[in-house]
């Protein structure tokens, strides 16, 4: 049940130069660590045991050569066209006469150069392809690459964090994909990329890595919380699909040129729980993304500024306050018409952007599937660019239930899993944006459905504590002061506006000799200032509401194995993590908090890049102390307890 095996008989990476050109050589069990054993005819001796097949060299698909070439070629073509264009223009300008011969020479020269470059690229890709292979050793996965400088990357199976497979549109057409193996090691934490595997190979590699990881962790498996009972009892939730699933099915049927569907291995375990998105969920997820909230605010601000601007522009030399002129002129039908047109324009523009963003979101979540297979969670998504993320349950750092402002209003939320992220799996921005969110296991679901989903997909988290220890009563006052004043955008906007307005007004008063232009300018500034005050007041009120809601809803809860932190407000975030994923925790107090007898508690987990802090401000001191006591390891967790000092 193995995919196509690339067969160059390479004994050591050093010897690869000589032997790589004989692709028809028989498959040889060869390990770089033991070249002597491989050089002797040990094939028959080891081939009988399954261990020998682990050391086969698996090459990547040959589309690596030409798809990679096409990618680089397009980039070069682009550069060449631009440079050619500018030089042609300059010749035409210099000579003033259209010289066909010079033109031809230049075009021919550039064409030649281009062909030469393409040749070099093909050669480079071909050589790189020949030298690129991976092996599955008894304890570690190894990737060998490099034309001149040989590179080897070894990943011990038990250090595998997650295995993702991604395919761009072109790759998808040909049924190949890149596989990223994430190890979460060290500061320069980078995923190992195995490029251009066929779909069959990618699936096989993923399940193989997880199977070996499970084996490597076997001695400790007894300690892993078992969820077998819960899994078998869990009903399969929401099998019905949505319209974009048709696209996914089409993809699955076409599969891509080299997908090699016949060789897709039977998964070692059937998914115990799987779900997709309904039409409603998919579209609402698209419509209620974060872009829409930003657009709402932009629209609101621009409409206000439009009204104020129009009001002061139409009657600039009015000696009254511009706001008065505005109120008196609103009744004027012509004036109202102008405002209506400009507002309609803004609204139309925003709606178009919104629809585009929503469509993009829908497509990126098209064909969404989340499933639980054995001890790993797999999420598949993307209609055009396909992504399949899989993460072992032991590597999940936290379960996050997030509600943005708009989703909060309609009672829906996003569920995701925190994991340790890579700095950059690849250079493309798309990957980094994927990584920053962890693994989204449901982009849009009813808050009341969350327990069901979690029960099915991460039953280990069923024991998360209910209820909460609320923040101290004094937190309400402190939250209002903090959010509305110190960190209050509205307050500071008002202060800055007031300072500028006073400064401008004072400078005109001291100038004394005011012409009508000056007065108009003064009125204009004052009108703008009033608009800004209105915005500041709205922001201030929103912040006050947010602070009150935060103080009412926030809190934390702990039990034997889990901790939960709820941070409310206009948006809401609930984060549950197992106690053994807490790297360390601390309490923090500033002088004001000490007066009020409260403290901030702060938990650090390893999720994200370089760790994530989750904090809860203004918890009563006694609760914070209890929490610190809870955070201390129990004696049972550590066997050898020799007192120090």
């Amino acid at each position, binding site marked *: 049940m193995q995919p196509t095996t690339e067969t160059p008989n390479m004994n050591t990476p050093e010897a690869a130069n000589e032997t790589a050109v004989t692709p028809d050589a028989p498959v040889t069990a060869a390990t770089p660590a033991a070249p002597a054993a491989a050089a002797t005819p040990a094939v028959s001796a080891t081939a009988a045991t399954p261990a020998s097949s682990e050391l086969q060299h698996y090459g990547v698909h040959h589309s690596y050569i030409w798809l990679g070439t096409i990618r680089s070629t397009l980039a070069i073509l682009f550069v060449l066209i631009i440079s050619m264009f500018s030089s042609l223009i300059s010749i035409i300008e210099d000579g003033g006469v259209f010289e066909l011969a010079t033109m031809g020479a230049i075009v021919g020269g550039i064409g030649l150069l281009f062909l030469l470059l393409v040749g070099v690229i093909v050669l480079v890709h071909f050589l790189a392809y020949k030298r690129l292979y991976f092996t599955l050793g008894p304890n570690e996965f190894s990737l060998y690459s490099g034309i001149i400088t040989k590179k080897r990357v070894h990943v011990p199976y*038990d*250090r595998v964090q997650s295995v993702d497979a991604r395919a761009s549109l072109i790759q998808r057409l040909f049924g190949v994909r890149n596989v990223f193996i994430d190890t*979460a090691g060290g500061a320069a934490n980078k995923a190992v990329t195995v490029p251009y595997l066929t779909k069959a190979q990618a699936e096989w590699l993923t399940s193989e890595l997880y199977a070996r990881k499970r084996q490597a*962790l076997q001695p*400790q498996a007894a*300690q892993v919380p078992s969820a077998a009972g819960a899994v078998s009892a869990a009903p399969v939730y929401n099998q019905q699909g949505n319209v974009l699933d048709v696209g996914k099915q089409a993809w699955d049927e076409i599969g891509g040129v080299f997908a090699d569907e016949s060789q897709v291995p039977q998964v070692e375990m059937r998914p115990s729980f799987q779900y997709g998105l309904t039409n409603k969920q998919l579209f609402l997820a698209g419509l209620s993304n974060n872009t829409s909230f930003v657009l709402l605010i932009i629209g609101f601000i621009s409409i206000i500024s439009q009204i104020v601007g129009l009001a002061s522009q139409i009657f600039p030399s009015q000696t009254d306050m511009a706001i008065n002129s505005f109120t008196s002129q609103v009744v004027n039908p012509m004036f109202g018409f102008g405002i209506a047109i400009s507002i309609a324009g803004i609204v139309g523009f925003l709606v178009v952007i919104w629809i585009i963003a929503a469509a993009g979101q829908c497509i990126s979540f098209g064909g969404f599937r989340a499933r639980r297979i054995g001890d790993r969670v797999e999420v598949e998504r993307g209609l055009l660019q396909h992504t399949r993320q899989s993460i072992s349950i*032991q*590597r999940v*750092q936290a379960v996050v239930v997030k509600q943005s402002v708009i989703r909060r209003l309609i009672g829906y939320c996003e569920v995701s899993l925190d994991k*340790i992220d890579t700095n950059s799996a690849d250079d493309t921005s798309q990957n980094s944006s994927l990584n920053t969110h962890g693994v989204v296991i449901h982009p849009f679901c009813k808050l009341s459905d969350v327990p069901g989903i979690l029960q099915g997909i991460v039953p280990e988290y069923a024991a998360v504590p209910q209820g909460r220890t609320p923040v101290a009563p004094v937190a309400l006052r402190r939250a209002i002061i903090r959010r509305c004043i110190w960190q209050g955008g509205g307050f500071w906007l008002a202060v800055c506006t007031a300072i500028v307005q006073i400064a401008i007004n004072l400078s005109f008063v001291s100038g004394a000799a005011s012409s009508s232009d000056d007065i108009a300018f003064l009125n204009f500034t004052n009108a703008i200032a009033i608009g800004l005050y209105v915005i500041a007041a709205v922001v201030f009120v929103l912040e006050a509401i947010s602070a009150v809601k935060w103080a009412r809803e926030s809190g934390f809860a702990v039990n034997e194995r889990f901790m939960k932190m709820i941070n409310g407000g206009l948006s809401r975030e609930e984060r549950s993590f197992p106690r*053994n*994923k*807490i*790297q*360390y*925790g*601390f*309490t*923090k*107090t*500033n*002088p004001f908090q*000490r007066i009020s007898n409260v403290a901030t508690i702060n938990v*650090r*987990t*390893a999720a994200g890049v*370089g*760790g*994530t802090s989750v904090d809860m401000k203004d918890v009563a*001191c006694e609760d914070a*102390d209890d929490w*610190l*006591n809870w*955070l*201390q*390891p129990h*004696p049972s*967790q*550590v*066997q*050898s*307890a*020799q*007192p*120090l*000092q």
Partner: protein
Amino acid sequence: MRELPSSQLDPRIKSVWRINDAIWIVISFLCCFVPFAIVAAVEPASWVFMVLAVEAIVFLALLVIFLIVLPPIRYMRWRYQLNDDFLDIAKGIVWRKRYVIPFIRVQNTDTRQGPILRAFGLSSVTVATAAGEHEIPGINTEHAEQLRDRAAELARIAREDV
């Protein structure tokens, strides 16, 4: 309130802090002072002398704060305790922090010794977890070794890395 951790740093750390801070303050002072002093020498003007005077006053104030006022307070506030299975740290003057670091989460521990610490026979111990590291700035070398060994032993017991 939770009781403060029992151990304090080695008292000699105060001298280490003083020397360290003095070096930094003098260097930054010279960087600010010398250019203006040159200007004053080339072209004496009253504003240059004003700047020089202000810089000298700030310099003296910083020296007083960092060499006389802060070290004893910092020393008083900096406490730690080596428990069986976790490290307890309390520190901070204005923002007081209290850390609990389970040893089973510790990835590695280093002992470090700069020239100043070495002159006083002290070591600093750094305890790193997967989400950040903590330094205990000055304890005597024997104690530091003990702490490091303890953390290493418990890190070995830990079931999985992260």
